[in-house]
Structures are given as C-alpha cells and as structure tokens.
C-alpha cells in the first residue's frame, strides 16, 4: 500500500520474481543491461542501467531517449523507437552460435 495515495502497490514485474537474496535485484539489473547491450545494437538502440535510477534507460543512436519501468514496457518502447519489434527469432540471433 502506498502511504500517500492509499492505492495498493502494483505487484513486482514477473521478471523480478525470485530476486530475494541480498543484492540479487541489483545483480539482475546489471545482467539484464548486459544482455540488452548485446542484443540491441542490431536495431540501432542502446540500453543502460547504472543501478542508481530506477528503471532502464533506452536510447537510439540518434539520441532519442526513454526511461522504462519493466521489460514488458521496454520491448514496447523499443519497438516504437526502432520502428519494428525486436524479434528474438531474428536470423541474426538464431543463425550465429556465438555471441559477439
């Protein structure tokens, strides 16, 4: 419950499940950013999570930026910025065995 507005807090995003150990949440954020940084350049996007500000920062190579709360929102905003959805079944991810 939020003490200011009285609304029940939204439950955590499903990708945050299981992060109960000390530091697990922060480690997961860094790991997420690491994966996204490897995936996104193909779509002309970059992701950043310094661990200080809540949320993930998403930017295009031309400088458009967005701050998103969770991964569901992340992929929707990435689609808007890139002009097409980031498809994990894109041949560039299924063809190559080794990550760059």
């Amino acid at each position, binding site marked *: 419950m939020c003490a200011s507005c009285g*609304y*029940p807090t*939204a*439950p*955590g995003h*499903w*990708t945050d*499940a*299981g*992060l*109960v*150990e000390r530091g*697990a949440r922060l480690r*997961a954020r860094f*790991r*997420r950013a*690491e*994966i*996204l*940084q*490897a*995936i996104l350049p193909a779509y002309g996007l970059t992701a950043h999570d310094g661990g200080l500000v809540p949320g993930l920062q998403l930017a295009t190579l031309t400088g458009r930026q967005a701050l998103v709360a969770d*991964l*569901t929102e*992340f*992929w*929707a905003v990435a*689609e808007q910025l890139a002009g097409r*959805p*980031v*498809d*994990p*079944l*894109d041949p560039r*991810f*299924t*063809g*190559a*065995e*080794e*990550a760059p």
Partner: protein
Amino acid sequence: MAEPREGRMRLTVLGGFLGAGKTTWLRHQVHDGQFQEACVIVNEAAETPVDDALLGGAARVAVLAGGCACCVARDQFLALLRRLADARSAREASAARLQRLVLETSGLAHPGAIVEAIRADPLLVHHVVVHEIIVVVDGRYALAQLSREPLGRAQLEVADRLVVTKIDEAAAQASLPRLLATLRQLNPGAVITGAIKGAPAPLPAWEMAAPEPLPALDAGAAARPVFPTRLVLDATIDWTAFSVWLSALLHARGEDVLRVKGVVRTPAGRLLVQAVRQSVQAPEILPEQDGVEAREDDTVVVIGRGYRAEDLRRSLRYFARSGRC
C-alpha cells in the same frame, strides 16, 4: 504437483463451447467430492441463470448472469472476486479460509481473456492465482464446431486439460478418434481425458487417426500447426537471461506463442512460470521436493506456431551468452 505454500486462492477456469457439457461435468465432480471446499462461480451469458440450480451439491455457488466474464460482465466478475477476497481476508489467519475457486465460464467466453483480466487487476493479483484451465469438448459436435467457430479453437488452444464429453454417443459415430487427433494437433500440450455424463471414461485408441483438416479461419494463422517445444535450461542459462528472452519473445511473437509453462530453478527456489498468450502470471515459488518431479525442473514448454523449435533454442542460447566473455 504439490500445493504451493502461498496464500492466494487457486482458481480453476472451466471453459468450453456452448452445450459442450461444462455444467454436467462440474456437477459430477462436485458430487464426487472434488471442489468440496471451493466456491463455484457460474457465469451465464443469458439473463436467467439455470446452471446454478443444477449445482446444489457445491458448498458455495455464486452466479454471474447477464453477460460473459471475459467481456461484457468483466467488471461484475472482478467485483465478485474482490468481495470474495475481502471476506476471506477478514477472517483470522488461523481460521479455515476459502482456498479454491472454480469459475464455470459461459460457452462464449475466452478463458485467456479472463486470466488476463485477473492479472491486470492490481488488487486481485495478490489474492487469486490461476491454477488450471480445463476446457470441455463436445464429443459429438466439436469437429463441426471447430471447422466453423474461431472461438471454439481459441478456447482449446489455451487449455491445460481437455475433457471430451459424451464419449458414449460419440463412439457410435466413429469420428471420435479423428476428433482426438485434431485436439492433439490444436493443443499438443494438454492432457486429454474422456467423460460420460461427467464420470471419467476411457478413450478409444486414436494414435493412428489422422486429424481433420480444418479450414483456415483467419488468413494464415490457423493453417499453421501448433506444436510444443521443450526448452531445457542448463547451467549456462540463468533466470535473468531467460526472463529477458521470454519477455522479448512474448512481445514480438505474442500472437503465435499460445502458452508457456514450466519450472525454473533460481537461487530463491523453484519458480513456476506460466503465460497465456502475452499475459504472464506472477511466478510462484513452489515447495522443494525430492524424487520424481524434480526431474521436471529447469524445463519450460512453449506451445505455439509460426517458428522452428530449433530457432527458439538457438535464440535463447544467444541471449544467455550475451555479455559473458
């Protein structure tokens, strides 16, 4: 599967097309002692409820008439669930609380839409967890319905369990094996059982039967067969990488990925991950257990169409390796 140790009410969604035999099946289960302590919610699209009169044996019956819980009467349905959750929370923790809910949907409901409505409700998500989607299939008329009604197919595709009713009448028609093969093709992940007037009945041999070629209802999509893919998450695939990958997959391929279900091991315990279409339920932590079922850990089944199974595995491995030198 052992009951998870968490405090949310477990909801069983019972779906199926009009006249498939949902109430008959449920009535027999109640008579048989199943769902004894559950609150049964009966939803009817028509204004006048009939089905609740048939369910006298259940401990508690609530009726939701005059609209379908997945669309028109969605707000009433959510309000009813909130009242139940409220009444339950008002009881002491040590007292016996309502643990199970059964929703008998109207024949026109899409079970996936109901699951999505509960998940999207900020209050109910703390109180209700979808336990199982059971879809009742009419043994006599389903083949004809499936070739005409997109809704009939949509209901089948999201089911965890398919109950084929009227086995005795259908057996006389000799089309039963064909129906069963068709069901297996539409939803390869579901458990299929048979029933006569609600009582379990053995299914005839149907492994050799060919599925009915169903006409495409929406251009293209239905023509592509649905198939299950087992993803084994070995030590190289961590939960964070898997969740990044799955969230991207559901965003990009939400129309094609119908169902995701599996248990993933994380440092915090065994997580039960479930998605119906693009809607992911908050993962629950399952109790630890030894022996047989532990082998199913770190295995996720993805049911869908329009991609190659090998591509799913390759893509997941690519995501998991990313950023690791």
